[in-house]
């Protein structure tokens, strides 16, 4: 209708998710704040979700979406646990920063 | 062809001008309706509360003070826009929009009218196109409202945090905790509605409630409705759940530092939400724009064409809830914070869950052809046992908490 009839193929989505995944992974590597590292892990999981949905659609397989549903549950549970741990550390001392956690060095 | 935007969501097919025009028109109508309704709601509330307090209320601007809200709005608009020194400017600025926009969005999926007689199913024909009187009818319908109400938390939370001040922060933390907690109960009572109407789409839910006997308020048993109502009130931060803006404790709550147009956005959002929530309740439990009917007898409002009658019914039904909200505000004292949390977690969530299980058991029994009485008896028995266990565990945990001291 606008004269531009380029339709995004699954590849576009897959590349986007690959890039997103990499950004997330780099984030985990460069950031030191556990909360932010944790957010980066969420980015990675989202990239995975996008991949599943895309692949599922490309193959006309609803299971791709079913899997994403489970991944979301896992992500939610992970967050609960992760934040629980962070809070329990914070109750002992303040300022969560991976570099400040130096008791374990070998 | 009915989806999130009432058209093909990603516009894959050929796009014609007429449907587009219809969509634009709908958007305009919904937006304007929303704004006007909010304005009137503010007036309505002030007026009714005043009446209940034996005062007069706004009566200067316009007839019966109807334009008072507009006047206030214009005044606020021209006030200086203050951003506190210690605020996080970017977040501080976008927070009001995060509050205001969701309020409008949830309005978009509410069926605002239509002809539900016979098997028309609320469809109307405009400009040669069959459509619904509703901005969008996504397949995930009610989940959309849940999603939007999830987003609505951000506005309040960020507003409080970005102000860079203690009281707003406390207010916003309270608010978000409250909203997140009650969302669970809200969702569970919604699940009962979905179970009964077998669809997520709002129009589908409305269609399923053809007569009073089919209204979800009755079909789900009255309990989910009450839970929904209470949870919705808490979501709205309306009295008696308005701890967020408890002036006595928190000065003004999350919006203490706001002024001018940004403040008015919060204010509008709150009332907009009230209207939306009332309309939603009507949609979910009271047949929405369906006319009141007993069996095959339909109450028909004279003089109004069938196509518009739905809207009138919706307005009337919603008005009842709006009045109830105002009434509650004028009547009930505020909860204490721990009472609020206890009520949400220990009463609303278990009972909505239990009720949902009961309905599910009934349905399973019906599908499998089991004896209804036995099923009911058994499930009630189970619920009673669960209730006893729950009470026991509350008792034990409170004893333990006394022994151990609380966490924070």
């Amino acid at each position: 209708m606008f004269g531009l009839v380029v339709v995004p193929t699954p590849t576009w989505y897959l590349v986007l998710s690959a890039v997103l995944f990499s950004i997330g992974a780099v984030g985990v590597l460069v950031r030191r704040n556990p909360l932010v590292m944790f957010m980066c892990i969420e980015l990675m999981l989202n990239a995975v979700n996008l991949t599943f949905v895309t692949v599922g659609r490309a193959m006309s397989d609803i299971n791709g979406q079913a899997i994403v549903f489970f991944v979301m549950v896992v992500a939610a549970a992970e967050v609960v646990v992760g934040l629980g741990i962070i809070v329990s550390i914070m109750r002992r001392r303040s300022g969560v920063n991976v570099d400040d956690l130096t008791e374990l060095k070998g | 062809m009915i989806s999130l935007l009432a058209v093909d969501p990603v516009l894959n097919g050929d796009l014609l001008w007429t449907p587009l025009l219809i969509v634009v028109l709908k958007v305009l109508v919904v937006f304007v309706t929303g704004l006007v309704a909010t304005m009137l709601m503010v007036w309505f509330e002030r007026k009714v509360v005043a009446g209940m307090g034996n005062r007069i209320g706004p009566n200067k601007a316009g007839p019966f003070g109807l334009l008072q809200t507009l006047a206030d709005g214009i005044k606020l608009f021209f006030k200086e826009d203050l951003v506190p020194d210690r605020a996080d400017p970017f977040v501080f600025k976008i927070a009001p929009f995060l509050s205001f926009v969701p309020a409008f969005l949830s309005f978009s999926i509410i069926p605002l009218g239509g002809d539900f007689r016979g098997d028309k199913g609320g469809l109307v024909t405009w400009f040669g196109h069959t459509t619904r009187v509703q901005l969008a009818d996504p397949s995930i319908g009610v989940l959309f409202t849940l999603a939007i109400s999830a987003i609505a938390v951000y506005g309040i939370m960020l507003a409080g945090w970005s102000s860079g001040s203690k009281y707003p922060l406390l207010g916003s933390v309270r608010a978000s905790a409250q909203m997140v907690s009650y969302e669970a109960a809200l969702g569970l009572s919604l699940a009962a509605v979905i179970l009964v109407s077998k669809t997520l789409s709002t129009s589908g839910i409305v269609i399923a409630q053809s007569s009073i006997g089919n209204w979800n308020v009755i079909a789900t048993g009255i309990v989910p409705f009450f839970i929904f109502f209470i949870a919705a009130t808490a979501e709205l931060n309306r009295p008696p759940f308005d701890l967020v803006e408890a002036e006595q404790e928190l000065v003004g709550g999350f919006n203490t530092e706001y002024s001018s147009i940004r403040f008015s956005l919060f204010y509008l959002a709150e009332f907009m939400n009230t209207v939306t929530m009332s309309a939603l309740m009507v949609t979910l439990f009271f047949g929405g724009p369906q006319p009141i009917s007993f069996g095959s007898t339909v109450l028909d409002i004279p003089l109004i064409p069938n196509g518009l009658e739905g809207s009138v019914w919706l307005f009337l039904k919603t008005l009842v809830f709006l009045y109830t909200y105002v009434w509650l505000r004028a009547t009930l004292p505020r909860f204490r914070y721990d009472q609020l949390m206890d009520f949400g977690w220990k009463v609303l969530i278990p009972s909505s869950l239990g009720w949902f299980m009961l309905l599910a058991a009934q349905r399973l029994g019906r599908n499998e052809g089991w004896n209804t009485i036995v099923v009911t008896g058994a499930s009630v028995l189970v619920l009673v046992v669960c209730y006893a266990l729950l009470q026991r565990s509350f008792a034990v945990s409170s004893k333990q908490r006394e022994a151990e001291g609380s966490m924070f």
Partner: protein
Amino acid sequence: MELFVFVCASVMVLVGALGVIVRKHPVHAALSLVLTLFGIAVLFVAQSAEFLAAVQVIVYAGAIVILFLFVIMLLGVDKAENLQIEPLTGQRWIAGVVGLGMVGLLTTAVVSGSDVLRLRGLGIASSVAGENADANIQQLANSIFSDYVFAFEVTSVLLVVAVVGTVLLARRRTGKGIA
């Protein structure tokens, strides 16, 4: 038109993702995360996964990021991280190289691999295709409760773990031994 949606959503996703890793302040990072999550939700809708889009917003934006913000605000971890100081010499460089390498490899892999995605199964119902608005959800439910019913049950254990675990972390036993 799908192109338009895709481009907008990808910009949201990428800007958000970059925001997460470059914004100093955790709150800003969290907000960037929300942006990405929305972008993903839009991409879900674009691929006929409406239910997942809704769940995405409810679960991620509505619960997960809220929890993040909660912790950030409640615990006062809101001091900004100084990104000028490198944690380990060269770590950022290495991470950058690793990241670029990953992008390269993964992109090559998916580009060269995506042409083998073949049609199988019954097709995904979207509200576009059928008159039944709930088709997508019903199909999904069928999949979850037949093929993945065991997985579904395992998630319940997973959630139990999360709950019990937080109880464990929150609990304080003052009485040594028998209370």
